[in-house]
């Protein structure tokens, strides 16, 4: 698969009030193949949101280059194309909603792209269905809860049919059902439409469902592997302020106590199987 996003030695920082220079991204290089479902983990301040903002030219690298669908993000003439290809969903839905009616908000992106009105209608209806908000299409966004608003914001991006979606902690405010609805929607967009997904999250269980996990720490890539391999580094993750899924943690704790369990348990199913096997052996 060709790379849809390619970051080469990206460097970015800013001046703090006391005139010290704070280097947020320290020569980050990362290749994201088309169609991948990638999770980015890292503690607050690790540079993951700053990196995400480089993916559709909200921020431009001070050193190095970011290439999106073959376009250099520093090329101002291509800004529209880049933003059309890479949609971005932020944590706080209130900052992303522009219209007074749900369906008009979702239509905002495609309207600006000059999509045919009949096609806009189709896209808006589909997008709202995808996020489970179709029955709210004529409601006013301000009367919705935070979680519902976030799903509208995601629908607005989906309606633009981008090749890549970058989500910066999209589920931080959602209840468990809303969270799994959003994640399963994003997974479906990835598997059925082949949209590349970059998911920034603090939920380890979400990251465990991705193809690949990148762990950032102090502006650098600390780990970059499959979720299974990344989460087997329990101690290292804890040392940088992160966590592992409880299923992984439980098996790790038992291993530390001398029990023989696989060191790459990732899911609830695997954990139940492994512990059952252990209990059977003891019988």
């Amino acid at each position, binding site marked *: 698969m060709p790379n849809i996003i390619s970051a080469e030695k990206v460097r970015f920082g800013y001046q*703090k*009030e006391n005139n010290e220079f704070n280097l947020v991204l320290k020569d980050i290089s990362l290749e994201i193949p088309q169609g991948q479902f990638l999770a980015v983990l*890292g*503690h*607050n*301040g690790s540079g993951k949101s700053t990196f995400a903002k480089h993916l559709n030219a909200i921020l431009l690298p001070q050193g190095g280059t970011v290439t999106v669908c073959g376009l250099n993000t520093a090329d101002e003439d291509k800004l529209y194309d880049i933003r059309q290809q890479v949609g971005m969903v932020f*944590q*706080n839905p209130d900052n992303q909603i522009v219209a007074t009616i749900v369906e008009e908000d979702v239509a905002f992106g495609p309207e600006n792209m000059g999509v045919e009105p009949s096609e806009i209608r189709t896209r808006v209806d589909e997008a709202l269905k995808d996020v489970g908000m179709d029955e709210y299409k004529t409601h006013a966004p301000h*009367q919705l*809860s*935070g*979680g*519902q608003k976030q799903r509208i914001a995601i629908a607005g991006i989906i309606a633009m049919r981008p090749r890549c979606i970058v989500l910066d*902690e999209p589920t*931080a*405010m*959602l*209840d*468990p*059902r*809303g*969270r799994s609805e959003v994640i399963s929607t994003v997974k479906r967009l990835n598997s059925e439409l082949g949209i590349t997904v970059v998911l920034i999250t*603090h939920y*380890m*269980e979400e990251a465990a469902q991705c193809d690949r996990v990148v762990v950032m720490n102090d502006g650098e890539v600390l780990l970059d592997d499959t979720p299974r391999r990344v989460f087997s580094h329990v101690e290292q993750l804890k040392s940088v*302020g*992160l*966590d592992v*899924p*409880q*299923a992984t*943690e*439980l098996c790790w*704790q*038992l291993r530390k*106590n001398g*029990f023989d369990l696989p060191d790459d348990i990732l899911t*609830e199913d695997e*954990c*139940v199987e492994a*512990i*059952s096997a*252990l*209990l059977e*052996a*003891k*019988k």
Partner: protein
Amino acid sequence: MIAIKTEDLTYVYSAGTPFEKTAIDHINLEIEQGEFVGVIGHTGSGKSTLIQHFNGLLKPTSGRILINGVDLWAKETKIRDYRFKVGLVFQYPEYQLFEETVYKDIAFGPANMGLSPAEIDERVREAAEFVGLKPHHMQKSPFELSGGQKRRVAIAGVLAMNPEILVLDEPTAGLDPKGRDRILGQIKQYHKARGTTILLVSHSMEDIARYAHKVLVLNHSGVAMYDDVAAVFSRDKEIIQMGLSVPQITRIFSRLRDRGYPVSESVYTMDYAKQELLSLLSGKEG
């Protein structure tokens, strides 16, 4: 003593318009003083509406709300007192910071209570210490701080009023695991030291399991459950039905039980899970 009592508490938004919606419907609830209660419920279940009644931000459409046995709305002129007695920390409280320095921001509440400068100073320092802010932070602009620090400043601003009841609406949303454990650890510490009644609204069942003693489950604008953490999470199937979840560890143990292994039905924290398995594994010498 009962800290919070509601009698058929009902609140209707936009009554008489096409958008009329009953957000909470005849809620009867008694929360003991000194309790640490986790509040869960899916989006739109009425959590936020309910907690906004506790300090009089919303006035019941019908029914009553009693704080320490006194009807909050018995005398409307007294409402202001409840804003100090019941401290509410909203979602993303860091957006509410406004003062020039961290110190002034934390002092805003106590200053409005009419305390003397010496008392205010003591309150501010105590509150700052509880949330782990260092003396050198105090003269900084709150906007120079990191997100997690800003949030702790906002929480300190509420703690500085020495509320008898502290209500936190998703205080850890958007924080990384370390920041989350830190804030909740400090709240737990505060609860221990002061005996304040605490209500923690959260979508993280893992956090609720770890810190709360009781869980209030709201569903369809009413109270679905109010019981000990163990009792609530042992009803995992009902909870999932409501669009909520139980900690992953609880699901794992529920499945081990379904397979016939003699594990406890109320496992909800990592420590307990580990102990339970260790004793089971070492108890049966092969």
